[in-house]
């Protein structure tokens, strides 16, 4: 399955918004500990938080892999590589 190539900044902004939504649910459950907020926080709130962190990790890992791949793509064009016997 091909993962859509979302710009890093957009993905991180979505991640930050999701984090705020998840945190809001968690804080609501702590300030009003009744069944509905507590259950929402422990299911939906934590699910949203996990999605946000997953999106962040996806962006960071993708950037690291791109950064590693970039020098290896450039190496055949570098003079040192061609001069090497």
């Amino acid at each position, binding site marked *: 399955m091909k993962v859509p190539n979302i710009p*890093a*900044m957009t993905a*991180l*902004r979505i*991640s*930050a*918004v999701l*984090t*705020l939504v*998840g*945190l809001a649910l*968690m*804080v609501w*459950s*702590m300030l009003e*500990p*009744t*069944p509905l907020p*507590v*259950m929402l*926080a*422990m299911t939906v*709130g*934590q699910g949203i*938080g996990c999605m*946000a*962190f997953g999106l*962040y*990790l996806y962006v*960071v890992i993708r950037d690291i892999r791109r950064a590693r791949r970039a020098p290896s793509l450039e190496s055949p064009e570098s003079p040192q590589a061609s001069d090497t016997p």
Partner: protein
Amino acid sequence: MVSWIIAKPFLAAALACAAGAAVLALWFLVRKPTLTRATKLVLLAAIGVLPLVTAGTGNVAGYEATKARRFCGSCHVMTPYKSDSEDLHSTTLAARHARNALFGDENCYACHADYGMFGTVVTKIGGMRHVYEYTFHYRNMSLEEAREKIHIRKPFQNATCMHCHSTEGPSWNAIKDHASILDRVRAGTVSCASEGCHGPAHPFSKPPGKPPGKPPATLESAR
């Protein structure tokens, strides 16, 4: 403030981490900084570390909150049970246990929890069942109707009483009625909450003529 933090350390930690994470996330959304390594580290704290700590400590605080009578009484059908527990003039078993300084605020949990090896998990699964029952069967029910229909699922186990009242103490055994039925109490063949002994903990909820722990026949056939 300091005493509140000491009294509820998990809740305080969760709220502090949530506030920190929110501030950092909002900073990122409002200021739109360049995506450098430092920015990613700030986001690691805002999206990863602090929310994880919030979720972890929040879960502990949430589990603790579910033990409170305030939590149990937040469903309207539990109002009479909560009111009775909070009535300083009530002489019911539930009310007398609610006046215990050690666990009074958590008297529902103290008496209805399972104290087996996986007791906490079993109790929480039972709690989820309560939420299901309330949402789909009792939510729109009047208090009078609910009082008729609400029943304990299994007969109340003496083992729950014996979690505190071990039946080993000399003061407990000094009572003749206790000593005479000691084996039967320990075996659970005579209920501590039976008529003639201590009686039901919530006597107002028992229709006259119905033994404690037995659901009304109409409800049993409906399940």
